[in-house]
Every structure is written in structure tokens, then in C-alpha cells.
């Protein structure tokens, strides 16, 4: 029997990360690894520190202590907050992506859909207009937006469409790591369903690694391979999604799982 293969090195290594805004508010003692092709869910109730952690991971908020180390596409390991400002920005622009809960926070509303998609490419040096436009058209189809609307402004799109535009905007530079903050929050269920299907297929086609904050355990079950359960700034339990949901060990996880309504 042949031993299965696993990724030897993590794509993202987080060690001893603390970022506190008060007693047990924020995140502390955060340790985890993320490997290529994995979707890691961070679940927990409001105020558990999920978004704080995501903000530290995205390079936006320096933690009080600890390390966030990323394996870059050129093969070296970059300590996100020890690196130079320009290196960090380059990583955030090309190899990382962040999909915000409210798409209006992640889009540039004053420019067209096509310009939104092209922006990250331009930031890393692409200047050829028709190439940018082709990429824009291609991505709009991939996220199931009508390419005819490439020159329309995001304001004219519905919430679900704006979210898909945000995803296209982020994925255009083929990031290896995408951070998502409640990507389906606030959307109607049928819109949510389409978006979940889209995320699911993109993750598998592009072998994306994702860290996804969600309070919705059904979304976690559908999209995430592994979960981190947070309560009052700390990780209380971690493991494979189906194990956490089917055999929760910690009292808080048991409470979360038993609180979910099934229609």
C-alpha cells in the first residue's frame, strides 16, 4: 500500500499571533498552518476575534506579537511584518487576495466593472489595454456576470453580482491565498447558493488556498476542509470540518453545533 502524498511545507504559517483591543477582545495565541489547496474556516460568534485575525493575515493590521510567514511564489519564506513595506504591498496585490463581506468595501465604485478587474493587473505592471479588456471579459464570464456589462459601474449591479465582481477582481492576479470575510453574508439564499457553488468550483479548479471567516456552519460544512473554532479571542478547537461538526469535543463547539437549525 503506497503512502499518500501531503504537502511538506505550509503556504501560510501563523505562530503566537496576538492582537488585542482589550481583555479577551481581538485574537491571541493563534497558531496554525495552511497548506496549498486547503480551505480553512474560522468560525465563532460575534466578537470572538475572527475578523481581527483576518485583518492580521491580510497585512493590514500588525499583530502585537507573533509571526505570519508566507511561502512566496518565488520560493522564499516572507515574514509578513518583517518584510519591507513594498514587499508586503506587492504580496498583498498579487499573491494574496481579500474578499470583503460587503462588496462595496472591496470594489472601487467610481470605476467600471472592467476597470475593477484590471486594477490589480495594472498594479503589477500590465499596461496593454486590449489585453486588460480581454482578461476582464474572461473573468466576468467565469464569475457568471454578463461580459456586455464590462463598462457598467458597480452601483448598477445587485449585491450578489457585486460580490462576484469582487471575487473576479481578487482572482485576476491568480493569488495562491485568498482571505474571505463572510463572503455570503447578507445575501438572499438563492444568491448565496450560486455564490457558494462558484467559490467551490474556483477553489477546486485553481487549487486555491482560502482562509474563510464565517459564522454559518452550513457554509463551513460545504466549503471548508478544516475549521478553527474561536471563542473570546482564543482558538478552542481545530480539526477537519466533518469531525468538528459531527464529533465536537470542546463545550463551546458542542454549543455552536447544537444551536444550528436544520430546515
Amino acid at each position: 500500500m503506497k503512502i499518500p502524498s501531503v504537502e511538506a511545507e505550509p503556504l501560510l504559517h501563523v505562530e503566537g499571533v496576538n492582537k488585542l483591543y482589550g481583555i479577551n477582545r481581538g485574537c491571541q495565541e493563534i497558531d496554525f498552518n495552511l497548506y496549498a489547496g486547503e480551505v480553512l474556516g474560522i468560525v465563532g460568534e460575534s466578537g470572538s476575534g475572527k475578523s481581527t485575525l483576518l485583518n492580521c493575515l491580510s497585512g493590514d493590521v500588525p499583530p502585537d506579537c507573533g509571526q505570519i510567514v508566507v511561502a512566496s511564489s518565488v520560493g522564499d519564506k516572507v515574514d509578513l511584518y518583517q518584510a519591507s513595506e513594498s514587499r508586503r504591498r506587492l504580496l498583498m496585490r498579487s499573491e494574496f487576495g481579500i474578499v470583503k463581506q460587503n462588496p462595496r468595501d472591496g470594489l472601487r465604485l467610481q470605476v467600471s466593472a472592467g476597470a475593477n478587474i484590471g486594477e490589480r493587473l495594472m498594479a503589477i505592471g500590465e499596461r496593454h489595454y486590449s489585453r486588460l479588456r480581454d482578461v476582464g471579459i474572461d473573468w466576468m464570464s467565469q464569475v457568471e456576470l454578463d461580459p456586455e456589462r464590462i463598462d457598467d459601474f458597480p452601483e448598477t449591479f445587485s449585491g450578489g453580482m457585486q460580490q462576484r465582481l469582487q471575487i473576479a477582481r481578487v482572482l485576476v492576479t491568480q493569488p495562491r491565498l485568498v482571505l474571505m470575510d463572510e463572503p455570503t453574508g447578507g445575501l438572499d439564499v438563492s444568491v448565496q447558493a450560486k455564490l457558494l457553488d462558484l467559490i467551490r468550483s474556483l477553489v477546486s479548479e485553481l487549487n486555491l488556498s482560502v482562509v474563510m471567516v464565517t459564522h454559518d456552519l452550513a457554509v463551513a460544512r460545504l466549503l471548508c476542509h478544516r475549521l478553527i473554532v474561536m471563542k473570546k479571542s482564543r482558538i478552542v478547537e481545530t480539526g477537519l470540518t466533518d469531525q468538528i461538526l459531527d464529533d465536537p469535543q470542546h463545550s463551546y463547539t458542542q454549543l455552536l453545533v447544537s444551536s444550528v437549525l436544520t430546515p
Partner: protein
Amino acid sequence: MTTRVTITNLHKRFLMHLQGAVQLSVLSGLSLTMKAGQCTVLAGPSGMGKSSLLKCLYGNYVITQGHIYLHFDQGDIDIATCEPRWIHSLRTQTIGYVSQFLRIVPRVPAIDIVMEPLINQGVDASIAKEKAAILLQRLHIPQSLWQLSPTTFSGGEQQRINIARGFIADFPVLLLDEPTASLDANNRLVVVELIQEAKQRGAALMGIFHDEEVRDCVADVIIDLSEYAA
């Protein structure tokens, strides 16, 4: 005969924090081996821990105490202590599982569900599709249903999708939880055939079968779990 799996002194307990910290002990000191080409059948009345044992083997349940060793050419992996990403890899490449109930991902066509284990192994989609089609035909699922999501299928049809998905990739270790429960006689026969074929290619199987006829056809070893009840 090669031993594929060794279970040593396995204990499984549930601690229900929300119900006054009640402890429920399901398995107590179980030891057994699974050999290539053999089917180990778990017997015993309902509630003895049969499904729980399969779930421990699949990494779905946390193991309270003890070890489950998988023996590879390159060494052993202990499911009780390995990292979750190893379990994930094992499920992709080594251990197949036919669960009692099909958990349906909405909007995914039946044939895609069946193809998935091969796609996850990196097999070309067209080859995976061909193999899925062959299995679905063997299990008497009409072609008109292949592009539909199993949400509206009958229990027996859902179970056959589950079975096709479990048998499509040639896993060296295969876990079967009541695979014939909702099936008619014709389809039960197909499952027996699939099990014999798996044995012939050297897979080690563990199964729960309430159907005595099927059990008698496939069992090489029968373990009565009531001996390991807490």
C-alpha cells in the same frame, strides 16, 4: 496475507458538556486487524458502536484512546494521532467510505458526485466520467437521472449513488456502513459483486450488514462488538 490496518486498544467515549457532562462510552479496548483481500464484518445489536468504529477509522470521530495503524510500504500512520491534513490525504488516496446516508451537496449532478473521488486523485475528467457511467449502469440508475442532483431521488437511488462513489476509486481500505439497507435483491447482488471484486484486487474491507444473506456472502471474519461494549 498482508495486514493493512491494526487497531490497538481502541476506546471511544463521548463527553456531552451540554447535558450535565454525561460520558457515553461506545468502544472499550477494541483490538483487531484488517487484512488485504478480506472483509471484516461488524456484528452486534444496534448501539454497540459499529458505525462509530467506522467513523473512527475514517477520522470522522475523535479517538479517545488507543491507535489505528495503517501499514504502508514506507511506514505506518496512526489515525489517532496524525495531523488532520494527513487524514484528508488518506481519504483521497487510501480509505474509501460508503456512509449510511448520502449527504447531498445541492445542485451537483449525480454523475459528478460519483466522479469526484477520481477527480480528487487527479484522474482525467473524461476517464472518470466513463467509469462513473459504467458503475451507474451496473447499479441500475437510469441515464436520465445522471445529470440531476440526488435531492429528489428515492432512498434506494441515493444509496446507490453513495455506493458508486465509494467503489469508483480502487481504495486499498474500504469502509461500508449498511451499503445494502435500502436496496432490492438485484442491487444487493451488484454490491456483493463489487465487494468480491474489491477483495480480489487486495482491498481490506470492513462492513456493517444487517442483511444476513449479504453478510454470509462477503464475510471472512465476523467480529461481535458487544464483547467490547463498555
